[in-house]
């Protein structure tokens, strides 16, 4: 009898994956010789391009494709043929640039909003209006003003990261316990010293939660943004493979997007744990 809960969960997970893969493999299996025989009228019109099977690649095909791709992830054979690792690095680079800029702007701004009730009231309407805007809606404006597709993509990441970090920082700063602020006051700490030595560590878990939400949103948005701006990046890669009708590559890159997103999230989760304190 298996008693360890982790082991149990791992077994159930593995069984589910195996079940899914078997059903998938079986459902797309067309059997030998299925593609032979007379061409239908439609097939003759399309020059036989319409495949007989469903067109969805089998898991085995995806796995073997993944092995090929991952064994040489950084090759570069021209504009439209770069390794998956290169494409992911482009995307991660853009996300980190836009996200980093957003952190640099949103955290200090969040401090101002959180520490000053006047600024809170003054800025709140803008935040409330700008926050629900889909980041991609900024794309045309960004392209027009910045006139550079890569920088526009970075701007879109910046604009979608800034709100969760700003709102969480302001909330975290505003909800620092009055007692702790009183301690800082009785110790005659300057405003800056209070912000750095008392408010920042007290609000850090809330701020990092905002940053974790932001990195998640950024990774969602970069794929869509790169589909629009083209050139490089995992979003462009997915779209390009779709145009090539290479569904194997599409599915493989979808999985890679998930893996990279998970890695980004767990990095922020670890950072959040590092600054967490028991009250």
């Amino acid at each position, binding site marked *: 009898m298996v008693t360890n809960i982790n082991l149990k969960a791992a077994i159930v997970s593995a069984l589910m994956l195996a079940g899914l893969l078997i059903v998938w493999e079986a459902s797309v299996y067309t059997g030998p010789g299925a593609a032979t025989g007379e061409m239908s009228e439609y097939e003759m019109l399309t020059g036989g391009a319409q495949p007989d099977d469903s067109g969805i690649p089998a898991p085995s095909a995806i796995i073997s494709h993944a092995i090929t791709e991952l064994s040489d992830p950084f090759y570069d054979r021209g504009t439209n043929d770069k390794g998956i690792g290169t494409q992911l690095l482009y995307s991660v680079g853009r996300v980190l640039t836009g996200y980093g800029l957003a952190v640099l702007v949103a955290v200090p701004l969040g401090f101002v909003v959180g520490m000053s009730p006047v600024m809170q009231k003054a800025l709140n309407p803008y935040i409330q209006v700008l926050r629900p805007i889909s980041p991609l809606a900024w794309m045309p404006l960004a392209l027009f003003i910045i006139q550079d597709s890569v920088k526009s993509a970075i701007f879109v990441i910046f604009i979608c990261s800034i709100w969760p970090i700003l709102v969480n920082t302001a909330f975290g700063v505003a909800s620092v*316990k009055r*007692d*702790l602020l*009183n*301690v800082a*006051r*009785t*110790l*005659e*700490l300057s405003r800056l*010293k209070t912000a750095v*030595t*008392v408010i920042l*560590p*007290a609000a850090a878990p809330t701020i990092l939660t905002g940053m974790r939400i932001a990195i998640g949103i950024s990774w969602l948005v970069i794929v869509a943004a790169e589909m629009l701006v083209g050139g490089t990046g995992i979003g462009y890669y997915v779209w390009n493979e779709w145009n090539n009708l290479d569904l194997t590559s599409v599915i493989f890159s979808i999985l890679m997007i998930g893996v990279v997103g998970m890695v980004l999230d767990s990095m922020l989760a670890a950072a959040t744990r590092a*600054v967490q*304190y*028991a*009250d």
Partner: protein
Amino acid sequence: MTKPFLQVENLKKTFPAPRGEPPLTVFAGVNFSIEKGEFICVIGHSGCGKSTILNIMAGLDQASDGYVFMDGKEIRGTSLDRGVIFQNHSLLPWKSALSNVMFAVKSRWPGWSREKVREHAMKYIAMVGLKGTEDRKPSQLSGGMRQRVGIARAFAIEPKMLLMDEPFGALDALTRGTIQDELLSIWSQAGQTVFMITHDVDEAILLSDRILLMTNGPNASVAEAVQVDIPRPRQRETLFKHERFYQIRNHLVDFLVRRSRELAGTGGGETRTVRLKAVGGDLEDGDGEPSRRRAAGGT
């Protein structure tokens, strides 16, 4: 005549009320003074503004009217000369006990080396009996230990005056007794002036030189200051055997139960110090008139 170390003059605090209603005056005409090295306790029912008075003295709150002078200077804003021990320890939860004390020491003496700060902080950690647990975070300490760290932090900056807002309110009776003893011994070594809020009559008698009694709010004021003339050092186990103990205790309980209500809203004026007679009942036996309006018995 020299000015007292700390003087509170005609202190008043009003809070704005919801529209339409007149503003709420919590206390008005609060007058008292504290001499250097005195241990003063304040007793009064909830809502009489004890904590607000303490916060004003700390510089954390502002009076609507009146003044507080310390060493002849008016108190405006907080100062490292007045240490505060808060009701709920108020330690920085991400710092260890030692770091919490060091944090305060560093802000008091910014020029000190890390070694010196550490050594100074350790001295006070040891004084409250927390040696060996100094590296634990507040969440890993018991309630009593946390409050001890708060006491160590307040004493470590060596303020001229200590303000304590019900420091032992959240502790169980046994822990409370131990920490009271520790507080007494630290205080007798350091000789600081202490102003402390409490709800515990026995605690007030054990610790104080004088006990300020506050009438009920709104419009509360300090009705009288009761002299606790039980000689020091006082022991918790033997205190109640002293002839003075029950006399003072009865006086305080009578005030809290009956007179604090009767005197509510009768306004401020000078606070008179009441010294209970050696034998017989207290001064207020008889016609029940407020003590501060009477001529006899004051010092």
